[in-house]
């Protein structure tokens, strides 16, 4: 007999600028499979969940990612209790 127990991890996801407007919220806490261990996989998970995520991440190459308030690439490992932020290129100054 093969037993399989799926592990879950929790994360806070934050959205800014037009990404926030399209998703319709500035932050959310999610519980996801521990297999989702990169921003790339997290985006894949979100876009399957709802049409608004699909729209927000339509041009995913444009969107920047931060892990615990530090810029990361979409292939960086993410983990339980991380704060992940998605936002467009910045326009301050």
């Amino acid at each position, binding site marked *: 007999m093969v037993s399989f127990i799926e592990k879950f991890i929790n994360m806070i996801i*934050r959205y*800014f*600028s*037009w990404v926030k*407007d399209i998703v319709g919220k500035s932050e959310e806490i999610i519980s996801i499979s521990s297999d989702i261990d990169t921003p790339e996989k997290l985006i894949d998970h979100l876009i399957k969940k709802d049409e608004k995520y699909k729209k927000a991440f339509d041009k995913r190459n444009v969107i920047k990612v*931060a892990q615990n*308030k*530090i*810029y990361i690439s979409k292939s960086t490992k993410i983990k339980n209790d991380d704060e992940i*932020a998605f*936002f*467009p*290129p*910045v*326009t*301050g*100054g």
Partner: protein
Amino acid sequence: MLSTNNTGAIVNFLGTVREKDKKNKKILSMTLEHYPLMTENEILKIAEQATKKWDINCVSIIHRIGKLYPKEKIVYVGVSSKHRQNAFDACSFIMDYLKSNATFWKLEEFEHTKKWVIQDKKEIEALKKWS
């Protein structure tokens, strides 16, 4: 504060809200959103990089958030040094990196619409001169 430590030059930069957008449309107001704490971290990193790169004495950076109106001040960068070229270069470097790395987003408000400003590719190209 900028004039301490044998200062011979102080360079001040002040960014302000334009009255019209790129298509010459009248801007009524501009709201600056930011990512609390990440913004402060990024600004500090930029100031530290400038301090390592040039012989400068003091750096002061102020960036406003929230709703602003045309002609109002958005950003201030002040740099002091013994010799002027270091202050000019460091100030320009800080502004280039603020524009491309600091987590601020501008929302322009017009008579009937609002529009998030899209990052100009020139801002990223501007960084090449510092590498």
